Structures are given as structure tokens and as C-alpha cells.
């Protein structure tokens, strides 16, 4: 810990400032502000899962929204029947892991845009189940009155309380995610992304890691869904249509695919920027938002964190060449003589 601070003073300052903002800013916001902050937290978790599948392991998935839906419906159905939130959470983890694992099998045969289509059709299938299986999901009527949990006797009904509750889960999930991507698994996932043939020749069981990437990424999407339901308190199938999967993909790409903090920034832009723009541009906020995203991706296809990464790399190169220049022997008149 102390070493981490000494080695990286800039990162420490950023971390402290961000933590302070996340903890204190909501105290100054009204109900809607806190609702949107909670939405940012939930979408960050969902995008973090996709960032594992797509960003680290390189497996495109257009089905992340479906897993948020599975988690949300599990949460809504069970909590309205009186189960505490922890029960649907565990159920959703098992369910999304199993379904995500199965969704990984096509990835063993097809890649890139073919895989995108396979996962897209799964997302469509999930949406149809949410809409048509009325006995389970109440179809287009939706599920009302999803309770917010009570933790240690404190109700999370007020938006501010629910925000801190979801923030706790964000911190927990990020911590576990960080632990995983820094482990040999993380390295194997990246090997899968960068060169699966070579990975296989180095003894890496690419099949198992591909399935794991799908299963774990989907599970994290499911966890986000479990939090989503009590946040919005009413769900119907529409939020889990294809648009959500595309939106989560956008968050991962805009933030910086394969960067740990990419989803945090991506969700910030996809969730909060349109709301903020709405205040300034009236009816044009979506147009302005679309233009901003396009400009960003033309300028930096690797997303926001890609810009910082590029800047750091250039600075390092400049420093290295300056060092070489200083080390080069210089000839004076005496030296030449």
C-alpha cells in the first residue's frame, strides 16, 4: 500500500479525489441526481463485465444487456415474493454463470462479427422470453413495487441510501475484478485476445479461458441487473431490448476497451452526459451526444483511456530518447584533435 503510493503519487492523488467525489458529491444532489449516480454505478458494473469478455479476452458479445435483464428479473420476481435481495443475487450469479458459459461455446467456433451475430440472437431470444413468458415475467405489464433492501436495519428506500448501497457493490466487484485481471488468469485472457494460436502453443487452454471469460463477464452483468431492479422499482422488457447491449458496448469502447477503468468513464459518458447535455441543449441533446461520441472515436478509437495511454507512452519515449541523447559522447575541438 505504502509502496504503491510512493511509486505512483499521481495515481494516488487521483484515487483520493475520485473517492472523495463519489462519497461526498451525492450529499449535495437532489433525489434525481442520486438516482442517476446509482444508475451510473449499476451500468459501470454491467460494462465492467463486458470489458472482461470483450476488452480483456477479445470476445465480442452483444448480449450483455440480456444478462442485466436476467439479473433484474431474478431480482424483481424473488424480492416481490418476499425473498431478501441476497437470495436472488446468489441465484442470478449461478444462472448467469451457467448461461454465459453456454453462450461461450459458439465463440469456440466463430469469431468477430459472426460471434457478434450469435450473441445478438441470444439477446433477442432473452428479450422475447421477458416479453412473452407472462406467467413468469408478467410480460409487457411489467413487475411493480420492487422493494429496496434494508441493510442492518437501515432502509435503502431513499435514493441517497440506495446510492451508497450500490456503491458498496461497485467497490466489491471492482476489487474482485482487479484481483482477477492481475492474476495469471488476466494474462491468459489477454493472450486469448492478442494471439490465440500462440497462446495454445504455450499450453494455455484457450477453450476453457474463452468459456470462463463469457461466464464471468455475464455473471457480472447479472449482478448489475440484480441491483438495477430495486433501483428503478418497476421493470418491463423494454429496457433489456437490444439497445441496452449496444449501449453497454458503447460504454466499453468509449471508456477504453481493455483498460480497467474504461467502463467507469464509459458509463459516465453514456449515462450522465446525455442528462447533463439536456439542460443546455434542450431538444438537441441526443444529437449533441452522438456528435461528441463520434468525434471522440474518430480522434481516439481506443477510447478515452486510450488517449491517456498514448500520451504516457509518448512521454516515456521522449524521456528515453533524451536520456540516450545525454549519454551520447559529444566531441569538442579537443576531443576531435
Amino acid at each position, binding site marked *: 500500500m505504502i509502496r504503491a503510493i510512493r511509486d505512483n503519487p499521481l495515481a494516488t492523488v487521483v484515487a483520493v479525489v475520485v473517492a472523495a467525489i463519489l462519497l461526498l458529491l451525492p450529499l449535495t444532489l437532489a433525489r434525481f441526481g442520486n438516482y442517476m449516480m446509482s444508475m451510473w454505478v449499476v451500468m459501470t458494473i454491467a460494462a465492467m463485465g463486458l470489458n472482461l469478455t470483450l476488452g480483456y479476452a477479445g470476445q465480442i458479445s452483444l448480449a450483455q444487456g440480456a444478462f442485466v435483464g436476467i439479473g433484474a428479473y431474478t431480482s424483481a420476481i424473488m424480492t416481490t415474493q418476499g425473498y431478501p435481495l441476497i437470495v436472488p443475487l446468489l441465484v442470478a450469479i449461478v444462472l448467469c454463470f451457467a448461461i454465459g458459459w453456454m453462450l461461450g461455446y459458439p465463440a469456440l467456433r466463430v469469431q468477430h462479427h459472426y460471434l457478434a451475430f450469435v450473441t445478438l440472437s441470444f439477446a433477442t431470444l432473452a428479450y422475447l422470453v421477458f416479453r412473452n413468458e407472462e406467467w413468469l415475467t408478467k410480460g409487457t405489464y411489467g413487475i411493480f413495487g420492487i422493494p429496496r433492501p434494508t441493510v442492518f436495519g437501515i432502509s435503502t428506500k431513499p435514493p441517497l441510501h440506495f446510492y451508497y448501497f450500490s456503491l458498496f457493490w461497485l467497490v466489491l466487484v471492482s476489487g474482485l475484478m482487479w484481483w482477477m485481471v492481475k492474476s*495469471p488468469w488476466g*494474462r491468459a485472457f489477454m493472450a486469448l485476445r492478442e494471439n490465440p494460436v500462440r497462446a495454445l502453443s504455450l*499450453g494455455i487452454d*484457450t477453450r476453457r479461458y474463452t468459456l470462463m471469460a463469457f461466464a464471468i463477464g455475464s455473471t457480472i452483468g447479472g449482478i448489475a441487473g440484480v441491483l438495477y431492479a430495486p433501483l428503478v422499482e418497476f421493470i418491463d422488457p423494454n429496457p433489456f431490448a437490444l439497445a441496452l447491449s449496444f449501449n453497454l458496448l458503447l460504454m466499453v469502447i468509449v471508456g477504453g476497451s481493455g483498460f480497467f477503468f474504461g467502463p467507469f468513464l464509459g458509463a459516465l459518458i453514456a449515462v450522465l452526459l446525455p442528462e447533463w447535455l439536456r439542460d443546455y441543449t434542450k431538444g438537441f441533446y441526443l444529437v449533441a451526444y452522438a456528435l461528441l461520441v463520434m468525434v471522440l472515436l474518430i480522434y481516439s478509437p481506443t477510447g478515452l483511456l486510450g488517449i491517456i495511454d498514448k500520451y504516457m507512452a509518448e512521454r516515456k519515449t521522449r524521456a528515453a530518447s533524451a536520456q540516450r541523447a545525454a549519454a551520447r559522447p559529444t566531441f569538442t575541438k579537443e576531443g576531435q584533435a
Partner: protein
Amino acid sequence: MKTVLEINDVKKHFGGIKAVDGVSFDVREGEILGLIGPNGCGKSTLFNTILGQLAPTAGSVSLDGTDITGMRPSDLNRLGVSRTFQLLQVFPQLTVRENLILAGQEHKGTMASRLFGPRDAGLTAEAERMIAFFKMTHLAGEKAGGLSYGQQKLLDAAMAFMAGPRLVLLDEPAGGVNLTMLGDLKERLRAINAEQGATFVVIEHNMEFVMSLCQRVVVMAEGKVLAIGTPDEIRANPDVINAYLGH
């Protein structure tokens, strides 16, 4: 001398093209065996067929007398058979050190120990040793994608040796490597061969490199074995001269 790898009448056909057409030879324990032949004679296809990247049309391959025909590359690698590819195959976004750790991490422990165990799979020391051995100490923390071609080629070879393999198949390790580094590479290969007793099969077009490094040489032409012998025998073989200079 003991036979490590036995290649028995292996064929690999792609439609009407007989890329490998009935190749048989043995690789002996501890030797450095060269595999040469004109472009398109089936050397790399033979490698891919031996190592499970391609399923052979016919024939068998055995390692220490056990049939390994069509075994998955990852399983084969964990039995101690390692390789490099003709085209450069490093992981550009990982650092040199991480590339080496990655190359060794699947050889011990379980999936669970790789998740919950040490972050470096306990391989930092071995990676550092390999980095020093290949004289890349100043590059250890650099991303592999930023290295020069020759340095990446050295890293590629170093990765193949990370897990202490018994048998290493090198596909054109000297291709595109400058003369100074070539000497380095040859010296490194010899040292690993001598110290670890690892057996090598080397595909290479650089004749000087092959003839000075290998104890025996297999010459392929048009999918078949044309000759097997010591470098001196191969140099004097009229068939080989004919195959290289044309009919």
C-alpha cells in the same frame, strides 16, 4: 541413442495438394536436428501437423513411444513440447517479463491456484533468468510490441524455453535477424541444448546457421524426405544440390 520423437509416414493433403506426403524420421534425445528444403516443400506444414495445429491426413507421431497424433497443442505443450512460429508471435501489449511469465504459467498448478495464487505464478525469478540469458535486461519492463524485430524474435525463442521443455521445434528462428543477433541466438541455443539437454528441431533457410548448429539435417522436397545425414553428407549429396538448384 534414445528416440524422442518418431514421425511415421505422416501425410497432410489440402484438397489435391500433397503438402506433406509420407514423411518419416526420428528425432534423437539431445540432438539439434535441422529441417531444410525449398519454399513450399512442406516444412512448416509438417511442424503444424506434428504439433496438433493441423490434423494429419494419415500417419502417426509419437513422443517417447506414446502416440500423440492429433493431440491439442496446449496439452502437448504441457508434456514439454514447445515451439516458435515462422511469423513473429509475441503478445505486443504485454511487457517482455509478462510474455515470459505467460509462457510458463500454465505448466504448474491448477486453474484455482492460478486465480488465487501469486500474481506472477511464482515465475518472476525464472523470467528474469531467461531475460538475462537472452541479454534483454534493459527491455524487461517494455511492451513487447515496442521492441525491434530482432529483439521480438529473441523474445519469441525465449518464450519457447520458459517452461524447461524437452523438445523445441523452431520455425525459422533466424529469419530477419541481423548478423550480430544471429550469432547471439546460435550461442544461446547451443547453451540451452548443452545445459538442459533439450532436443531441438530447427527449420531454417540460412544454410550457414543450420550447418554450423545442427548435428543432423533432414532435407525435404515436394512433401517428401529427400535426404537425412550430417551437414557434411548433406552438402555433398547430389540430390540435395539438384533440389536447390532446380532440375
